[in-house]
């Protein structure tokens, strides 16, 4: 009987283990890679690998087709792909046969489209909304001579960390570039020049790209908008890029809330001290205050008048609460600051007594964003923990059984 119980428990745990693994990642149809870039070469023949993804582990029937200006250059392995529930991903490849010539330089596209179709039915027969996922093939046709294009990315917008300018330079020309480097001029919100940075120098082979990097380490930077002019120099040619970027985020913080000269039954005047942490003027800032009773019902929803906030400054907003009929006690209080289509929200507790209101913060209530559910590592840790428990249980069980067996043997021997 006991043996049966353990068996059932073990089976349940194994099934739970499999279910956890399956349910931790759910999606319908997918394709990878989403984009592939190749350089044009006359009459190029190449196999390009791609995957159809069946994360939902169902019977998936997929219609595959190519489209776009280079669709004639694409040969797909098949038009219908079937995946069984056990197949999470199927790896395929399509053939690219490029023409001997494309006259005009630029980027030419082909799209590999994968669309789920109903079992036993053909293309286009469906009764509800569905998705088609696309893997794009970009073919870059180089410009004659030397020609580079650059893309700038700025890492970290935190005022406390150095900002790194990453300049990806693509050699789109037919010739190699011997020397490429970049300079960055950084300007503040009033166009004052704050810094000039230089990157290292690197060669770029035709059709390839490199990354140039420089860090801006100034730690006395206020949050706010900034502006950079990035000039890429390559073999006597230049390319200029202008980029706006922000350090920190546009935020007004609630510093404190006070109520002075209060008597229960009268009108409470809340002084809400707020702080502009941005390096620019923010117009029309107002506070909304929602006070709830024990049942969670909103008993007051009050707003302050609007104020303009100078850069990096503090101001006091006032809200008024008529406390007639209000009893002593603790009230949940939410304060929402409204400014430039943004909101800052904080939760407080208001402790109301006969002659005083104390407003104490509970901490910022924010947009808590889950990072894709339970992480794999936590699942593994849970499973390991469960399995360790099972094994300990089993060891105890085996030991007990062995003891009982030994006892039984001894009794049998005695009886004999």
């Amino acid at each position: 009987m006991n043996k049966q119980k353990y068996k059932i428990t073990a089976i349940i745990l194994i099934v739970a283990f499999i279910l956890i693994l399956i349910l931790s990642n759910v999606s319908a149809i997918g394709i990878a890679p989403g984009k592939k870039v190749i350089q044009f070469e006359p009459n190029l023949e190449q196999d390009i690998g791609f995957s159809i993804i069946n994360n939902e582990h169902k019977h998936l029937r997929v219609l595959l087709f190519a489209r776009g200006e280079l669709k004639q250059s694409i040969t797909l392995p098949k038009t219908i792909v079937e995946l069984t529930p056990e197949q999470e991903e199927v790896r395929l490849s399509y053939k690219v046969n490029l023409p001997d010539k494309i006259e005009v330089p630029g980027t030419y596209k082909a799209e590999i489209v994968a669309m789920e179709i109903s079992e036993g039915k053909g293309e286009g027969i469906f009764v509800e909304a569905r998705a088609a996922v696309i893997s794009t093939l970009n073919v870059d046709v180089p410009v004659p001579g030397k020609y580079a294009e650059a893309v700038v990315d700025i890492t970290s917008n935190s005022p406390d960390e150095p900002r790194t300018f990453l300049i990806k330079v693509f050699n789109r020309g037919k010739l190699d570039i011997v020397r490429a480097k970049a300079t960055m001029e950084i300007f503040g919100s009033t166009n004052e020049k704050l810094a000039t940075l230089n990157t290292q120098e690197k060669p770029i082979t035709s059709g390839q790209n490199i990354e140039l990097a420089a860090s801006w380490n100034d730690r006395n930077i206020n949050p706010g908008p900034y502006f950079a002019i990035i000039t890429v120099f390559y073999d006597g040619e230049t390319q200029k890029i202008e980029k706006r970027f922000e350090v920190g985020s546009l935020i007004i913080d609630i510093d404190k809330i006070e109520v002075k000269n209060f008597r229960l039954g009268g009108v409470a005047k809340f002084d809400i001290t707020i702080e502009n942490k941005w390096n620019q003027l923010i117009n029309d800032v107002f506070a909304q205050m929602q006070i709830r009773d024990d049942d969670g019902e909103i008993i007051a929803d009050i707003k302050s008048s609007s104020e303009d906030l100078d850069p990096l400054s503090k101001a006091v907003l006032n809200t008024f609460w008529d406390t007639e009929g209000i009893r002593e006690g603790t009230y949940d209080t939410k304060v929402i600051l409204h400014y430039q289509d943004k909101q800052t929200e904080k939760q407080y507790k208001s402790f109301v007594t006969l002659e005083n209101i104390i407003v104490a913060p509970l901490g910022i209530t924010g947009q808590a964003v889950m990072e894709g559910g339970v992480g794999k590592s936590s699942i593994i840790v849970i499973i390991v923990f469960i399995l360790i428990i099972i094994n300990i249980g089993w060891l105890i069980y085996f030991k007990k059984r062995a003891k009982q067996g030994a006892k039984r043997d001894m009794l049998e021997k005695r009886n004999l």
Partner: protein
Amino acid sequence: MKFNMLFGIVNLILLFTVISLLLPYPLDNSIIYERHPSFWSLGKSTLILSKEKDLSNPVIEENFENKYRVKERLEFDTYYWKIIKENIETKVRKFTVESKVATSIKANKLTNEGNTIVNVLPGITGAAIVELEPQDYLQINQSKKIIYEVSQNE
């Protein structure tokens, strides 16, 4: 006998789990879709991650203890990495972060289940393109016969 077999199977699962914990991740020459991969090493270690084979100009050079999860979203590219612990260092391993365009349609929501920003184009003439970050969703009417085309926008 059957019971002992069950005991063995469960232990195999345990062993598999522990091995997968200890194996270096991402595996050498692997293609991954995770843009914030985690690296494991028991104790205090240093991770060097670079786009160059010789690990020059590292994208990440961080000290960590036991586990390190990449903070910034990695670009779709091939990366080389090694872990240094005291005087020991692993061999240089390689992995590729590949973009995945994936979507699900459930409960009148079209969700971006992939690892890249996507453009969603409802197959209706004149309809606007919607940009979705990974895990973002678009409210739709699922009962309408529309094909939503989802493509990479990064």
